Each structure stands twice: as structure tokens, then as C-alpha cells.
């Protein structure tokens, strides 16, 4: 059982997309997955009302800072994966969620604005490690990147992260119409057909590479 928290104080950086991709890929393989939608915008809850949600995937919403730890515990008792999608603000609830997280994913677009807020998230994790008296593993996930080119700003941010020895996913979630279509039509990537979104195969391969990295990281953490 693993608790994976998606968090960054920056809104629109791809937290919900990354969280739902992970959740659906795992649930499609028969694992029990609970997504805790801790964002008051309730985007995951809205998506889950559309058809095509895999069996074994449950969404819990209406959480607040008083209930989130109990909600995570309750989900952990029945699921193989607890995936927490936070709101894109510097909210106290984030601190509570990461305090019990197995792994924190910080989505970041290739912009200075995103990188600055992602860094705030890292600083909070580092400070919470002292309170929790343990290492809280995390990694940056570049999102909405171009499948073809690497802009200079993104290159610079990657360089700075490397300098600061900040863990970064090797896979980037590229900017794919299929990811938007998933929230528009509902269900999973594999449930879409090529008329609903172009580049579907590339999106599926991209999502699997990213999910594979999450799995690999969690396995290494279990061994360590």
C-alpha cells in the first residue's frame, strides 16, 4: 500500500492530470485505488461522474484539514494505492497530507513561475521531514512539455534542479490532446478512440512510462 500525494502551490501545473493518469493505469491492472480529491474545485470528483471509470477506482471528496489524515487512513485500509490530489495553493492541508505520504509528486511546467512555486513545495517537504523524523521522498514531474522540442527556459530550470540535486522524473508528461479528452469524455486513456483524440498511442505510451517510473520509485523505497 502506498500513499502518493500530488502537490504544488502553483495552480494548473498538471496535478490532477498526473494523479488521474496514475490512478487509472493502476486500476486498469486490477489494483484497488482510492483518489482523495482534496481540491475544492472537485475536478477528479467531476471526472468520476462521467462514464468509463475503471472498477476498483474510488474517489473521495469533501475533505478538509481536520479530516484528511483520517481519510487517508480509511483509504489505506482498503486500497493498494491512495492518491491524493491537492489544491494548487499554499494550504495547511498540504502539510498534513505530505506528513504521511510515501511519495510526493510535484508537477511543474517549464516556466519560472511554476519552478518557483515547486521550490516552495520542496522547502515545505524538507522542513516537514524534521517534524516527521523521516525522509519524505519526492520528485519533480515536468508536465505539458512539447514532445518535439526543449525550450531554453525548460533547459535552464532542469539545469538548476540538477544543481540543487532535486530529483526529477526522467519521463515528462507531454502536452497531449488525449489528456484533455480524458477529462472531457471521461474514463481512461485506453477507453478513448482515435476519433476523440489525436496522438492517442503516444499519450498512452507517455503515461505508462511515467506510471512505470512512479512504480519503480516506490519499489526502491520499499527496499531501502
Amino acid at each position, binding site marked *: *500500500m502506498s500513499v502518493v500525494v500530488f502537490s504544488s*502551490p502553483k495552480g494548473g501545473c498538471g496535478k490532477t492530470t498526473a494523479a488521474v493518469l496514475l490512478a487509472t493505469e493502476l486500476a486498469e491492472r*486490477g489494483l484497488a485505488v482510492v483518489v482523495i480529491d482534496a481540491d475544492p474545485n472537485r475536478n477528479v470528483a467531476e471526472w468520476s461522474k462521467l462514464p468509463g471509470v475503471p472498477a476498483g477506482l474510488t474517489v473521495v471528496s469533501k475533505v478538509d484539514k481536520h479530516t484528511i489524515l483520517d481519510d487517508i487512513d480509511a483509504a489505506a485500509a482498503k486500497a*493498494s494505492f491512495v492518491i491524493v490530489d491537492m489544491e494548487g495553493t499554499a494550504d*495547511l492541508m498540504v*502539510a498534513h497530507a505530505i506528513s504521511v505520504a510515501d511519495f510526493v509528486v510535484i508537477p511543474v511546467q517549464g516556466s519560472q513561475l511554476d519552478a518557483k512555486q515547486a521550490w516552495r513545495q520542496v522547502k515545505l517537504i524538507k522542513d516537514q521531514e524534521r517534524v516527521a523524523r523521516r525522509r519524505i521522498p519526492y520528485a519533480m514531474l515536468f508536465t505539458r512539455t512539447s514532445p518535439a522540442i526543449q525550450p531554453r527556459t525548460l533547459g535552464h530550470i532542469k539545469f538548476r534542479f540538477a544543481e540543487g540535486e532535486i530529483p526529477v522524473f526522467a519521463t515528462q508528461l507531454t502536452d497531449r490532446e488525449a489528456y484533455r479528452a480524458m477529462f472531457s469524455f471521461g474514463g481512461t486513456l485506453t477507453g478513448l478512440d482515435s476519433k476523440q483524440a489525436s496522438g492517442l498511442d503516444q499519450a498512452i505510451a507517455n503515461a505508462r512510462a511515467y506510471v512505470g517510473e512512479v*512504480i519503480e520509485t516506490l519499489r526502491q523505497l520499499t527496499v531501502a
Partner: protein
Amino acid sequence: MADKERADPLGDLSDFATPRPLVRPRPPVEQVRKVAEANGFLARTPPARAEPASPVTRSTRFKPMRQRTKRNIQLNLKVEPDTLARFTALADREGWMLAETLVQLLDAYDAQRKENKR
């Protein structure tokens, strides 16, 4: 090439399949909050306010009268000070309300009249 199934790149995930309760101890909530606030991660919802043990309502603030009467009409009298003094002294002595005292006096008067007629 026929539609050959590709191997799932995620492979066997059975090692994740067992749910188990979260064994990780929760860090002290108060310390988590302090560190979060120091980093500018603030509570957006106000702290839960403890409910008062028994909510203050009109019915508990003002105890209902123990004695309910049908006295609902005002009687204003102008009297001499001595009369008032005698009247209130009688009420005090007997432990009667003023209105009750008046009824007692009227009853006594009626009883007296009945006695006298015999």
C-alpha cells in the same frame, strides 16, 4: 503483423496489491502546522469551534414561570398611602401575590356577606 498483444510495460504489480492500514505514525499536528505556517502554507478554513456544552437558547436563559395564571388584565387603582401599606403588608404576611390578595379579600367579603344573611 497481426494484432499481437504487447507485454505490459508496467509488468507484475502484485507486490502492491495487498491493502494494509497505514502504519506510519502521524507527526504531531501542532508542529506540522507551525512548520507549514512558517513556509506560508496557511489554513484557509477557520479552526473548528467547539460547540458550547448546552447551546444558550431563549428557553434555557429564561426559565419558564413555575406558576401560570389566567391573570392577563391590568387593574390600576389610586389609593391612599395607608391603604396601599395595609394591602401590601397583608400580602407579605400571607405570602400572597398582590392579585391573589385582592381575590382573597373579595372571597372573604362574599363569605362574610353570606354569613351575615343567615
